[in-house]
């Protein structure tokens, strides 16, 4: 699984960070950083939830 963020859409709402902090981090500069582009299977469900709950539909997965 590869995590892809469309940074033109991302508004740093940080919902993804609350669901999968191992993968997503919004820092003090208010930008989103991807900590782990290829999360392991143990994180897949969390990452899927982050994808669904992104208010901008800015995250996608390449399986």
């Amino acid at each position, binding site marked *: 699984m590869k995590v892809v963020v469309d940074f033109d859409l991302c*508004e740093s709402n*940080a919902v993804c960070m*609350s669901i999968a902090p191992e993968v997503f981090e*919004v*820092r003090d500069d208010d930008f989103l950083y991807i900590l782990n582009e290829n999360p392991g299977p143990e994180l897949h469900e969390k990452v899927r939830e982050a994808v*669904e709950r992104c*208010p901008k539909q800015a995250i996608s997965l390449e399986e």
Partner: protein
Amino acid sequence: MVAGASLAGTQAAQVIRRDGYDGRLVLVGDERHYPYDRPPLSKSYLTDEVVDEDRLRLRATADPEALGIEWRLGRSAASVDLGRSILVLDDGEELSWDGLVIATGAGPRRLPNQADAPAGVLELRTLDDARRLRAGLEAGPERVAVCGAGFIGAEVAASARERGLEVTLIDAAPAPLDRVLDTAAGMAVADLHRSHGVDVRLGVGVTGFERRGGDGPVRAVTLGDGSTVAADLVVVGIGVAPNTGWLDGSGLTIDDGVVADETTLAAPGVVVAGDVARWPNPRFEGRTMRVEQWDNAVEMGTHAGRRLLAELAGEAGLPFQPVPWFWSDQYDRKIQLAGVVTERHEMVQGSMAEGRFVQIYGDDEGRLRGALCWNRPRQAIQARLLVAEGESIDAARERLG
């Protein structure tokens, strides 16, 4: 069977399918569009030079065939027979179900005389509404009046202003967003709009409309204090009411929403989700909530879908105990509220004057219950987690300050 094809209903359908249900799945939606995302309708849909409606489509059903859903679009649920497990549509079609998700959402509240309002008086809930409003804004009105300074009204006012139009924002409450925020925070929203040149009128309600000529389009809004506000485009955004009329007499409990238990179950085999649903949230001492927010629609749709599958498998359900969270974009401000607002508030970072702050809300036991953040997205989400963990105000001040 899913009644309601917007965010909550679509999400429930997606979860039901993904978690292994392979039977018949019917999605009923009263709009003729495939499910789409509503938040942009009051913001980018109105301000962008070019709009691409395909981008509004909800991703889960971007390919309508993907989930094996039988669509009933442009049709609405008319009644339900719980005893026979039958959903009746407006055209008389009867659909029998093993499980039912009720996610029929909410519809705009209207002014008493709005049905007879002149041309040029619009509302905003659906994509069709947004098309009309965008066309109205593109026509270059001389003056726009927005009746109601809730989220929709405030965002529409900001969008109209960004298009360079003259805007008056009117609300009977003492401050904008009065149902959601404390008055001081609401006044900061009023200041934000005033600083962008909006004429903000508070504490005075709209009583009617004046027409151009005898039966022409709108030319002014009349207010409770006897004054009038000139406007050739009017947007009424005075909140929404849950769409429960079709359930009168069904045997379900209706009380400003369809009432469910703490697991989102409203009756055997029936779950509820989204704007239409009221349930006791264990996270807030079982206080009943009906949440009209985007993230709740997704989270509750997910929960309700799983709850229904558990029900069908004869298993017990888990409580639904989210910390509500929403965002609103107005001008260059991102306003976010996590949890609930209380009387006990405290600014822990920044200030309203700076337009960038974190204000936290506590209860009498010293626990954190919510946080309001302006242009502080990370802290809003951190606060949401802290509320979920039952953290103290003291800890929150430390972590968010």
